[in-house]
């Protein structure tokens, strides 16, 4: 059973003097238990809106949403204790210290105050815990937001751009933390623009644009689907090799001194064609697509900020 299952979610914002705008246009989001799930999309594509709908903060027009099997928003109270959340910029009371901010939340949920110290420790804010949040840097606030998301020791962690403002070490710590949590059975839903990060730690991704899903699935499958199947071939006499390959019907061209052959199912076919012409490739390398390229290709067609 999926931990998060949303089907056909629509959310329209009314705008003054303009036609209403569909921020979510029949969006589906399915996240299975455990692991890290990336939730990607260009600016304004509806990621935050979707998360707000899932958490009962915004009301979806239509659609069926379930978290841990419970209908949202109706039965959200039954599962909210298992959900940790960081939404865009964290929302703390600036004149209070970080510790007090978390203690107030903990008191309400009868979470022991030792947990407050523990989560502050995890995000390395112990030294600054008794300073006012007003004086916190962007990254410190973000760390505090992550600490708050962990306060309940949730089994579902929903994070909207958690790395926003973090320093390289902080980003890496968060990455490691999320990966470890995903491995330990926590379901992490991670919205992020750092595609390198997503590719490193996510098991599955959903990419959306204009409030609709563009693609979804395990990261390697998404990458494979975007792969052109290009093969780079190193060969001594590149111009002749090109002639041979084009004559043999390959879509090939010269790039940076080597040959680039498009849509190759099996490298051996290329190697044999060259060998038959007495040209022996010194190397063959399938061209990888990374998530950034895939993302740009997938979301490019419609272009622009939503």
């Amino acid at each position, binding site marked *: 059973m999926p931990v998060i299952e949303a089907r056909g979610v629509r959310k329209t914002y009314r705008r003054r003097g303009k036609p209403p705008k569909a921020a979510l246009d029949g969006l589906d989001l399915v996240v299975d238990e455990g692991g890290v799930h990336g939730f990607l999309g260009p600016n304004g594509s509806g990621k935050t809106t979707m998360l*707000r709908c899932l*958490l*009962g*903060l*915004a*009301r979806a027009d239509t659609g069926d949403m379930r978290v841990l099997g419970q209908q949202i*928003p109706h039965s*959200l*109270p039954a599962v*909210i*204790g*298992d*959900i940790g*959340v960081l*939404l865009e910029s*964290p*929302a*703390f*009371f*600036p*004149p*209070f210290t970080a510790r*007090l*901010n978390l203690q*107030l*939340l903990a*008191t*309400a*949920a*009868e*979470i*022991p105050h030792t*947990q407050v110290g*523990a*989560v502050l*420790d*995890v*995000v390395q804010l112990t030294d600054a815990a008794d300073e006012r949040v007003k004086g916190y840097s962007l990254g410190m606030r973000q760390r505090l937001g992550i600490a*708050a998301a*962990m306060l*309940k*020791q949730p089994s579902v962690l929903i994070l909207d751009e958690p790395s926003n403002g973090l320093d390289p070490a902080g980003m890496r*710590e968060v990455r*490691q*933390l999320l990966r*470890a*949590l995903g491995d330990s059975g*926590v379901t992490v839903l991670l919205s992020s623009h750092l595609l390198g990060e997503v590719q490193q730690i996510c098991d599955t991704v959903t990419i959306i644009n204009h409030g609709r899903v563009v693609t979804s699935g395990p990261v390697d499958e998404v990458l494979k689907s975007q792969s052109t199947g290009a093969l780079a071939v190193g060969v001594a006499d590149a111009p002749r090799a090109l002639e041979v390959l084009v004559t043999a019907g390959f879509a090939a061209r010269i790039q940076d001194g080597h040959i680039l052959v498009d849509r190759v199912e099996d490298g051996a076919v290329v190697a044999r064609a060259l060998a038959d012409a007495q040209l022996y490739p010194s190397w063959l390398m399938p061209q990888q697509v990374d998530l950034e390229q895939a993302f740009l290709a997938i979301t490019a067609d419609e272009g622009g900020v939503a």
Partner: protein
Amino acid sequence: MSIPTLEQRPTHKLLPLLRSEVSRITHRRLVRVMALILLGGIVVISIFTFFMHSKQLASAQEQLESNRAEQQRYWLECADSAPDPDLAEKFCGREPATQPLERFDWGQDDRYKAYEVLPIALIGAAIAATGVAFLIGASSGGAEWSSRSMTLQLLFEPRRLRLLTIKWLGVVLSTTVLAAVAMVVAVGFGALTAQLRGTWDGQFAPVDELRDNLGQTMMLMGLRGLVLVAAGATIGYAIAMLVRNTGASLGVAFVYFVVLENGIRFALMRYGSEPYMLSTNAVAFLFPGGLEVPGEEAGPYAESTSVDLTNLRSFVTLSAYTALLSLPAAWSFSRRDVG
């Protein structure tokens, strides 16, 4: 880095939520400053009052008696010249000797008159506390929105009406406790002043209820004061929930009390608007037995009528105002998108 383990799952109980809310309110600096200003102000005024009153009870008494005796002499002279002894009162006014002594006070009686001043001290403290309660209510609500911490709290308690009710209760609880302390301080200082520099003479009571039973009447006034404070806090909180901003809420209150109420008084008083004014009702609700306020003017030359604004009537009016603001606030909070 790893996530710390909890022995007990997070709960959703009302009492811990209320505890957290009260703690949130009492930790706010503005709340502390306002409490300090309220209590400090009461103490300063009380000390001032103490030194403004004189201990010379005996000399004041003598002075009033000699004032009355002097008036009596004039009155007798006047009565002598009256055509008929039965008409003496008609010609010369009431006989001074039959009148209460305090009528003859021309500023010489510096005693603190408990029956007269204590109720005023109580009403003053209650009204000041109501203002503070409004401010605390409005800024608690407003701060929640400007810091977006309401969003965070909804991620711990998504049942909006439940969260709102508890938060409202927290505001009401904190402000009424503060008001109770303020009233006790005001009345306590007053009683001390009466003891050392004044009189507990019941003849100075402005209304019968006070003369007949000072303690009980004051107690009931105090309770009504707490109700008024709760209403003030509720209205402040409700406005902040509607406009989602402290400054705007204070602006609304300013516009209402300074511009709108006075404007209405100026323009509509003769059509009988006074019994519906919020501030008038607040005072009438506290004052023992209520107040008589101007009603509709019957005509250009007729005497204006007056309306008996009883405690009950002003309570109903105040409740209507409170409900008028807080029900839409609750409704909008339960439906609108957050965060």
